[in-house]
Structures are given as C-alpha cells and as structure tokens.
C-alpha cells in the first residue's frame, strides 16, 4: 500500500462525520440490501488540453 498516512488523522477517524446532512444513512445493525444497491463508482480523469502539454514553452 502506498499511502501517506497521518496516524493522528486515523486516530480521529472515530469522530469523523459526514459533512452533508442530506447524505443517506444506514443504521449500524441493519442489513444493507447489497444486491439491490447501485454501487457504481465514477471518476473523471484529469484532461490534458493541447496547450497544457506544452509546459516547457510556457
């Protein structure tokens, strides 16, 4: 694993909370309907435009 870990932050993990009050919650003990949930993850790759590849002239 190649991560930059700050142990202090990990220690704080227990208190961490979702910043958004609107995000859905799931009660601790409840079973999630894992088969029915849409677990799609989407990311967007940083797009490099033509001028940005010319970093040496600029």
């Amino acid at each position, binding site marked *: *694993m*190649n*991560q*930059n*870990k700050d*142990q202090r*932050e*990990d220690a*704080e*993990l*227990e208190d*961490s*909370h*979702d*910043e*958004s009050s*609107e*995000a*859905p*919650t*799931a*009660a*601790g*003990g*409840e*079973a*999630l309907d*894992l*088969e*029915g*949930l*849409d*677990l*799609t*993850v*989407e*990311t*967007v*790759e*940083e*797009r*490099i*435009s*033509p*001028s*940005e*590849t*010319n*970093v*040496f*002239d*600029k």
Partner: protein
Amino acid sequence: MIQLPSNDFPVTLAFPPQGHWTQPHLALPCLKAWLHASGYGDVEQMDLSVEAFDHFLTAESLTRAAEKVQRRLPLDRFKEDRLPLGQMRAWRAAAESAASAESVIERVEAAKAVLRGQDHTVEAERGFWDPDRYIPAVRTLYHGLRLISSAHYPSELTPHNFTMSYSNDSSEDVLAATLDEEQNPFIEFYREQVMPRLIEREPRVLGLSVLYGSQLIPALTLARMVKAALPDCHITMGGGFLAYIGDKVMAAPGMAECFDSIVFHEGERPLLMLCEALRLGEGLEDVGSLAWWDRSDPDHPVAVKNMAAHPIKLDDAPAPDLDGLPMEKYFSPRVVIPYDVNRGCYYGECTFCTLPTVIGPGYRTRSSETIARHVVELRDRYASTHFNFITDCMPPGMIKDLPERLIEAEAGVTWWADARIEPKAYDADGAKRLYESGCRKLLFGFESATKRILKMMMKGQSLKSVVEVARNCTEADISVTFYAMVGFPTETREEARATLEFIEEHADIIREVSLQTFHIDEVAKTYKEPEQFGIRVLDAPGDLALYHDYEADQGMTQEEAAEMFEEMMASFRRNLAIFSGDNIFYFMQKSHYFLHLASGETPQGFSGRCADRTEARAQRAADPGLKVSPGLVTVPLDFSYSEAVRTLSDPLARAARPDFLTGRYVRDADQVAEEQLPPLEVKERFLLYDAENGEFVELRDGGARVLAALRQHGTLGSLIEAQRRGGASEAALDRLEQFAAELHRLGVLRSKTPTPTPSPALASAQG
C-alpha cells in the same frame, strides 16, 4: 556610458499573469541587466504572475472566493429538471466548490509549503520529494484556482492558462474584458496589491512583458489602470506574443487609452533608447523597433512605427539580473535559474516553426566561455546550482564545447535545455560529457515518425538518428523529452498513429512527450505558402486574430487532428510511466521532474517509481482494516457530475470556449454544441472530495448508503461481519468488497499503513 543617480529615472518592468509558476521567466532579468549596465540604476522588476498565484492561493482569498461562489453560483440555483449545456460549466463549478472549498482553504498554505520545500527543515523529509505528499499538494493548488475561477465564472485561471468568455481575437472583447470586474480576477488584485506600490514609486517607464496570449487581457488591464493613475508614466509593452500581433493591437481602436508604445522583437536596445529619449525629453522617432502613438493632437493619437533596431551582440550582454524577483514565491523548492545561451535558431528551416522569427533577425550566441563564467556568477549570486538554458536549440559546436567549459570552471551545476537531433554531437562520449557537465534533461523536436511528414516539415533528421541520440542520452542518464506534433497538413490518422507507436515502442528512451496540435499563425510558412502544403487557409474573423483555420483535401481535418490528440494522450497516459495516473502532475510542473534528476535520481529510477506507484494503487484491495478517509466530504447532487464533465470535454463543447492554445473562439460553436449535446436529466448523485487525495469521485445512492454504513461500523471488516450476521449472501459480500477495493484505489477508503520509505534519491538530496 551614462551615469545616473539611481533614483533619477525609476523604471518598472512587470510580467503580467499568466505564465508558469515554478521558475522566473527570462525576459525581464535580461532587460534589467541591460539597462543597469547602461547606467540605469533604478530598475525594478515584478513577477505579477507568480504574485497573483500566491495571492489567490491564500486562505483569505479563497474564503472570499468561496463566498462569492455561494452568491454567484449557489448549487440550489440549478433546480430545473434538466441541465442544459449552457449551464453545465457553471453547475460543475458550483458542485466542485461545494465539495472542495472548505478543505482547499484549510490546506492551501501547507500545500504551497510542500511545493516550495518549506514544510520541513530537513531536506530529505520535505513533502516535495514524496509523491504521496507532493501530488495531493499540487492538486490542492489546482483546486484552489478552480475556486478562484468559479468566483469569476466563466473565466478560468489554471497554472497553465488564463481564458475568459472574451475572445483574444477581438480588440473590442479584449478591451471590454479589462473593465469587467465580475469576471476579471486581476482588477481587484492589481487594485489591492499592485497599484499602491506603483503609485508610491511613480515609475517614469513601465514595461510589460507579454510572451503569451494568456497575458494579453491581464497586461492591458494593468496598463489601463496605471494610465489612469499615473498619466505621466510611459507604458510600453513587448514580448513574443506581441511580436505576432503588435501591429494589429496598434491598429485597434481604443488601445491608445491603455498604453503608449510596443517594442517589437528583442527588447534590450529599444527599451534603452526609449528610456534615453524620455529622460532627455526627446521625440520617439528614432527609437528602434518601436511602435508608438504620436499624441501631438491629444484627441487623435496617431500610430507610428519606427525602423527596426539592430539586434544586440549577445556575447556582450550581461548575465540576467534576477534581483528583486520574489524568489520565495515560485512554486518550487529550488530556484531554477533561466539563462539565455543563444537567441534565434542556427537551423531555422522547420516549416511549422516561427520561433526564430519572433525573437528578431538572425541567430546569435554567447561563447561557451561567457556562459560558463555567467553560470558560476549566477550560481553564487542566487545560491542555486540549477539552470534552465533557454535556447531554441543548442548548436552542435556548443554541445561539444560548453560541457568542457562548465567542467573546467568547476561550475558544479545541473541544467536542462531544448535541443535538436544532432547525431554527431550526441554520440556516446558527447552524451557522457554533457552529463558530467550537469545536463540532466534534453528536449528534442521529434515531431513525427513519418518520413513524408518530416520532409514536409524540413526537419532534416532521420528516425535512425533520433533513436541513436535518444539512446546515447538515456545511457548517460540524461532524460529525453520529445516534442511531437499531430495534424500537420495532409497527415493521416495512420501516420499520427505511427508516431504514437514509435514513441511507445521507445518508451525506455523517451520519458516525456510534449504533444502539440498543429496550428497556423500569420508568421508561419504554412500561412504564407499554403499551396505548398496542400491547404487553404481560411479567413479569421476578429481584428486581433492570429491563428487561422484551414481546409485540406488530404489527411485529417482540424477536428480529426483534435480527436487524434486525445487518442494519443490517452495512450501515453497508459504507456508512459511519468504520464500514468496522477504522476502526470510531475510532467505538468515545469522543472519539478528535473529537480528530482538534479538530486541524484536517474530517469529510469524515476520512471520505475512512477510505474510502481500506479501499479501499487491498482493493486489496492478490500482490506478489512479499511476506513473512510477522515476528511471526506460528500455533497448530494441533482445531476451526474461525471456526465457533465464528459459532456463538457466533448470537442463540440470545448469549441464554445476560447481555445486553450489560441485564445480564439470557434464562431457559433456554442449554438451547434447546444443543439447536439443533450441536456442532463435529473439523477440522484453524490460527489465525494477528499483533500488528502484530491480527486472528485461520484457515487450513486447505493454507494452513498454503503459509505454511511462504513462510517458507522468504523472498518470494512466490521461492516462485512455485520452484514454476514444479518444474512447477506457471499455474492452480496463480494460486491461490497469490490466496491470497497475500488474506493480504496481512489483514496476514499484508507488503511493504516506506515508512511512509505522515501526514495533512494532522497538520501542524496541536499539543500
């Protein structure tokens, strides 16, 4: 030589935003040194580009920006049931700001400290050398600029460009942009940070260096403000970009209200002549290479263009003078000193190239002895052993001679430079000597792997010699970068793919590629003799237009070339280590990869580390100890963020903005794009942002629920246990694990692992 009391004739030279942020530009230091050597003792230089970046990237500016975004682009403004293209960019800015503003504000100072090597007193402990701290820091700064941009929507300021909704092609647009306080971030910056200093100083001459199109509006914005506040200050502009369009700027209505003159080509002699004339109260008729307004009738200034000045004898020119530049503000842990070894190009034949034209007539060089002497002087004066030799390319004689002189002078420096494929000069011994003299990286104009195209370009190089030179350099541990071009007139897709394949087949000797799309400006041979290249150049609307569209009977159209650019870049991202994953940020920050090489890393070692990082990330699995990253922010959205980004990166949508390279609009493009790219339908989505990681990730309702459950359970292991107890099937748990592994790869989930050991090169990294 005239001798003046140093405060008799204050001159200020300024580099307006936007240029790159990692090292000083060369123009002003050369001009300052020349004026100084000619007796002008009070010459101040300001790098307003790096100052603006530094100013915008503070907690205070970003907080103000975030508030402004809240006011101008609140997310809940987009409550319709569809999101049309016209609103997509604004919505994206609003969504990103909502997710990232708080953490970017919190982290911006620390991020700057990492890039500047100011985060730790011990060199080897600095985050700059650790990709897992360096890359998040770079991202934080990029996202900070997105926040600044959103506050001035639709303007976009990045480390590589500045564009507005106004087109650089039209003087009316450009002048309107200089007055648009809502969209032009530099008006407030100048008013608060720059004008008070200038008003106090009252320079007699203000010289603005405009190298890039991205500086045109910011330069004129400042010029206009100074003209209003200090009517007696003569404002002159010069630099590469104005060598192309200076005549058009002088002919455009309204420009006389902003500045007084333009210097064409090399600035040393004209600027000195201008200062002399103004100091002695003489007319400007005899100032060489100057275009200026005769204001005899103040209501009707008349544009006058003088004869060209003689270029200077470069070997007599003093070393650049960097005094007064804000060295601590560059986003780099060490100053890389720019130094001009020559001007113009000794070869000067390539048919697409206009570089030798814009610097002024002829090719001139400093002698190797002078260069070595200056390098030692600059090294001692600025306490830096790193140099960027500024040259269109090094002539073969100098490739042989300069290393000897540098070694003889015990310069003990490292350097990088542009170069031309010269098989005789870059033989095995030559490459070794170059390395010994400190050369760590060379950038060659490769352009194409197709003989036919190379011939049309008149590159005068064979593929055999290209490989030979790159291999010799690589074997000497000099990193090789290739400039490559896609879309040269008549080039076919197959030919472009041949270039791609050639580069990738030689990925062991080509570490970086600077890929360009071909374009035509009015100085180029392709513009003047289009029939030779089988093209028809189209008229460009706009009184300041520099770039032209064209049509070809053969080969790719401009649009196809743009698509091919994307295809090639995507392939490089897969197949070149320094381009893979987020390692691309090393490539994007001029000189940063070089600094690794300068600190003892080899090109192969660095590429290996980049490849290992990408691989290690891909290998991240669903470890039971995984936890939600503590800084993770989740923002609910009404549309899909990734769909919006994909739509906006469609060539049709991109054409609706001023082009990144040329600052020019494609006319009616917004209408065409709006018709062809469907609006987004409402969808429940969640945007995740983790400052530590710095990438935006999008989840759907199900994913957000699992994430919330994970937070409550603390670790993935405990969530899986609970689900198992609750009767979840193995297949369901499998899905959960796959999801967790994916989020782990993206840094949304993290496991407790010790900080990775620093790379071997760090042991030798000295301050």
